[in-house]
């Protein structure tokens, strides 16, 4: 049996989006993904190992107890040379605001999904990435 592909979701309000991930996984990807939630940056012990994941969803506003916010996490991933095609940004802020902050922080141009999100948003972006065979 082939090992499951892994998705890391850095999100402190995971319950609000969990079912969207579960539905899209079950309905369109045959449950091939294992979903792992990290409500804070430090809950993922060794950030170097995030490169082992097939997709990384990063919410910009993490828990107030988180040592890093989403932008700092992205910066950390870049310094660890994590493949940028694996990373997707989640946010409850405005799309343009996050886009311009990515530029001002000199981060790469990651795809952004704004909340509220549904499985349709996830399906589109995952299909695009997998269909493009960027990772596989």
């Amino acid at each position, binding site marked *: 049996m082939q090992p499951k592909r892994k998705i890391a979701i850095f999100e402190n309000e995971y319950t609000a*989006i969990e079912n969207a991930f579960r539905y899209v996984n079950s*309905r369109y990807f045959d449950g091939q993904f294992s979903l792992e939630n990290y409500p804070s940056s430090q809950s993922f012990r060794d950030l170097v190992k995030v490169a082992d994941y097939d997709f990384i969803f990063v919410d910009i*506003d993490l828990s107030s107890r988180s040592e890093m916010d989403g932008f700092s996490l992205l910066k950390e991933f870049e310094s660890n040379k994590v493949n940028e095609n694996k990373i997707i940004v989640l946010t409850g802020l405005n799309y343009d605001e996050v886009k311009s902050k990515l530029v001002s922080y000199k981060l790469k141009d990651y795809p952004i999904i704004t909340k509220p999100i549904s499985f349709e948003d996830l399906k589109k972006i995952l299909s695009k990435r997998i269909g493009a065979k960027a990772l596989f």
Partner: protein
Amino acid sequence: MSILLKNDLILRRVFSLIFRFLLLSYGMYLFINFGTYDNILVFFLLVVLYISIYLFTRKKDRIWSIIRLVNDYLLINYLIYSTDSPKHLLFSLLILPIINSPNHSGRNRSIVVIYILMALSIFHLNQFAWNFDSTATVIVFVLIGIMDIFRSNYIYRTEQLNSKIEGYLNTDFGLNKSYHIYRGLMSNLNSTRFFGFNIDRVLCFRVLKNERIVLVNSSKFVINYSFSRDAYTNLLSISSKNTTSYGIEIQIENQAYVNTLAIVDRSAGDFTFIYLFVSDSLPNFRLLFNYLFVSQLKPVLRKISKIIELENNLQKSKVEFIHQIIEKYYYVINAEKALHFIRNKLSPIKNYLDMMEDFEENNLNDQDLRDIIDSERRKLKVNFDLINSKANIILDKGKNPFFIARTAPFSIKSLLGTLRRIWNCYFDDFEQVVSVDSNIDINTSTIYGNDDGFELVFTDWISNIDKYGTGKRSITLKKTPNNFVLSFANSVSKVLTGEIEQIIADYNSKNKNEILKRRRHGLFNVKLFLEEMSINSDIRFENEIFILNLYLDAAQKKNSDF
């Protein structure tokens, strides 16, 4: 240079021109009556030369002002030489430049030169013989001249010091930068040896409650300073007497200074200021000059105190304003946070609807997917309650910093004051457009309203008049048996005329307030604000004039504290 000094220079130049005209006319009179026609050509050439030299040197300073004087006395001496004029007439002629000396247009009056020329001319008049009477006359004139020079120099210096204040006010240094004045003040005081000492730095202190002295500002930035106990006591003592004191020791950046002069100024309202002039030398034996120095500085220091006091008040207003803004800012931040929270909580709703649609449209029969959808549905109820409670936070009017429903008695005088201030931001004809019924006593009449509310209403409405008005405008305040009616009337542009009927119908309707509230239109904001303050209003369009009437309920009469 201050405006006063500039005007003074212009006047002196004009008087200088008139003086030359008089000198020439008087000279011609003497030549025609007492001269010989044999010399007329020479006299004519001399007059031409005199005028030419004068015109050439007219607006020039320094050596040129001396040349102008020599030019005058050459003409005078030619008349002494070539005419048989009576001595008293010639004497009158040669003292004319002395009489005119207060109007000397050169900056440094050539006091020595003018008296040497006069003395030489008198010597010439006496046919180069010594004469006691003439010598006494010269001495008297010299003494009078010295006194006049002393007085005018004093006024000129004082005015120059004042010009430093004027220069500061005309330069955009920004708030709390009044220490820039000291630099100009010091360079001006140090440019003369008149007082016999050099000012190294100026420090300004404020005396608080007659018991504490704190540094306000200084010509050079000071990090550490201290006074000995005696010096501190001395300063507190002179601060209550509005006097001056020499030799108060101060330590600045661990260096002691003893050559100091402290001048107290108690003219700026609540505070007493002490200006400490630190010098490399302050010779006490020049008491007269030091007295002059202090008397010259006092009016200037009084102005600086007023500026510092004004800056202090502005700073207080700024802090107060920032406090108000901070409250509003926090409200906006909280509202933003609440919306962010709501957005997050809307995800299950959006996702549930999409999942249901997908599930039903595709006739899916997968129990796992059904379980996920059921799980999402259970979350909806919880999220709905959370969203609702957050929405209540935003809609809680008590927390809204723009809440203006609390009204209180508001004097008509304050109302007109607010109106004038806002009107003046857009137009400059308040006095011409405003008309208040003569039976309204603005000092005692009060209405119900809210300060912020009137600010919002007037700003919104007057900006609309500015935007759509076409020139005619008026404000009237009338009294009716039950209330006051404040009316704004203005002509409007043709662009707006087409939709005016609809606007009036909407505004005056009592049935669609909640709909109009959500329109982003200045007009309906005005209605919203007025209704919050329980002020009835209507708008009309009569004879091409757009009118807004505010019906202000009279409050119980009381003395205005505006």
